[in-house]
């Protein structure tokens, strides 16, 4: 091995490993250990109860729906911010990061104030039969909010560096606008869109603060899994809470693995660099 010119390898490696061990791995080890206190029959009773299943379905189904909405909206917004110039563009560009910076509890009560039956938008939506607050749709709205920046921000640098010659070549060869978009642009962006989808999904699955206010938290209807964990903790059912946490972590890791496999498959369309 090459002799290291730069100092501090041993010290930084030791410190980073020790700190990660203490702050990240030890607590997660305690979580896994505690969940093993639950007997297999306990796991089965927990995971097959209608309330747990409904919560998992809402957390994962809602997060996937929200991430999909974010892919569509994010593609449009990133495209407009990169390719078009209009007054206020820089302001809107900065605004995209708001869900990163705004505390989730603040987002939660703000979204509720907007979509509640008496709220700014709720008073028009509810008479139309669209119930957002205190319903599963509200959960999805909050998840879309917290995941919004991921797709836009992963897409922007890729769009900026994408060579327009490819699109121009397609157009000059007689492709229509839609053909250029669906046959040339979209395949090129697909791996990045999937990265953004995965990030938005991971964020939305675990989201708590912005969801619990708008959800109404009706068991088996609009109750998310993290809230179910909190309720089990409040009942001092630590093994059950830990088991539910482990189940959530395993499910989201599997889901993200699946996304990255699809992403790897989609890379075959990328242009050689």
């Amino acid at each position, binding site marked *: 091995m090459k002799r290291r010119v730069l*100092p501090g390898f041993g010290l930084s490696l030791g410190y980073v490993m020790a700190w990660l061990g203490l702050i990240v791995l030890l607590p997660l080890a305690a979580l896994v250990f505690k969940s093993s206190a639950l007997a297999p029959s306990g796991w089965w009773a927990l995971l097959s109860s209608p309330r747990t299943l409904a919560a998992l379905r809402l957390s994962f189904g809602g997060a996937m729906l929200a991430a999909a909405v974010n892919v569509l909206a994010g593609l449009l917004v990133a495209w407009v911010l990169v390719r078009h110039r209009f007054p206020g563009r820089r302001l809107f560009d900065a605004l995209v990061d708001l869900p990163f910076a705004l505390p989730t509890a603040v987002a939660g009560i703000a979204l509720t*104030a907007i979509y509640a039956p008496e709220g700014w938008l709720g008073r028009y939506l509810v008479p139309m039969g669209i119930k957002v607050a205190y319903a599963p749709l509200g959960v999805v709205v909050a998840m879309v909010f917290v995941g919004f920046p991921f797709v836009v921000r992963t897409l922007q640098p890729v769009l900026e560096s994408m060579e327009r010659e490819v699109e121009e070549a397609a157009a000059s060869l007689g492709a229509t606008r839609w053909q250029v978009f669906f046959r040339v642009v979209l395949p090129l962006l697909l791996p990045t869109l999937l990265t953004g989808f995965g990030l938005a999904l991971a964020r939305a699955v675990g989201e708590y603060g912005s969801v619990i206010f708008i959800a109404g938290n009706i068991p088996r209807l609009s109750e998310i899994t993290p809230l179910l964990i*909190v309720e089990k903790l409040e009942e001092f059912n630590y093994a059950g809470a*830990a088991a539910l946490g482990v189940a959530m972590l395993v499910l989201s890791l599997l889901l993200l693995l699946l996304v990255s496999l699809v992403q790897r498959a989609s890379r075959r369309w990328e242009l050689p660099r």
Partner: protein
Amino acid sequence: MTTRASVVRVLMILTSVAVLTVFLLLPLAVVFSEAFKQGLHAFTRVFHQAEARSAIWLTLLVAVIAVPVNMVFGVTAAWLMARFEFRGKALLGAFIDLPFSVSPVISGMAFVLLFGAQGWFGPWLIERNLGVIFAVPGLVLATVFITLPFIARELIPLMQAQGSEEEEAARVLGAGSWQMFFRVTLPNIRWALLYGVLLCNARAMGEFGAVSVVSGHIRNLTTTMPLEVEMRYNEYDYVGAFAVASLLALLAVLTLAFKALMEWRYRHELAAGGIHR
């Protein structure tokens, strides 16, 4: 053809602006509107109450501890990840990112299972009359966990892109380790570091899920500002909830403004990516 293209363009811009306005600007506006709904007097009265003041102090205290702790960790981890090759590096990187993909509630619960009355170290702590869970140390620990990757993630891509030539030159010319760090490394990463600190601070002050699990919601003792927002909201004190929330929203707006300013001013000194990767 050109007219149709420009119609499509205008439609796309208008739709984007509408999406951004309804989904992002409206929630921000509603916070301030609700906070001042009953006038300035009702708003300021909230901040004369001991609970609100104590929540503000506690939030500042937690951030003042958690952010420097993560600053030291972030700089060290970035030095390690960007300057050395070693076995297991990818795995270590995955562990640094891990807090991003763990639900805040699960993070908080993990600390309860370590330090709570039923936890691994619970009995030991109770014997010595030390409180971690339902006390300030638990709030700090949960916040440190949640914000652990922020600064490291901002620095690693930048330092990788910068390369180590300048630092190696400093060493060859006889600079000591700390001399090299303070004269070469730190000046090269200062804007990205400030940027990371800013984002880390915003999250530290606004963290809700993890902190809510370890706090126990004891008024005047373990309620940070986001928890104070929740408690007031659940007690139907909407003006109070939105007044405290408006301070946090103001912090978010200032963070965004500063971020935009830095991106515009020091664009080439901030690596692409960072937190969004």
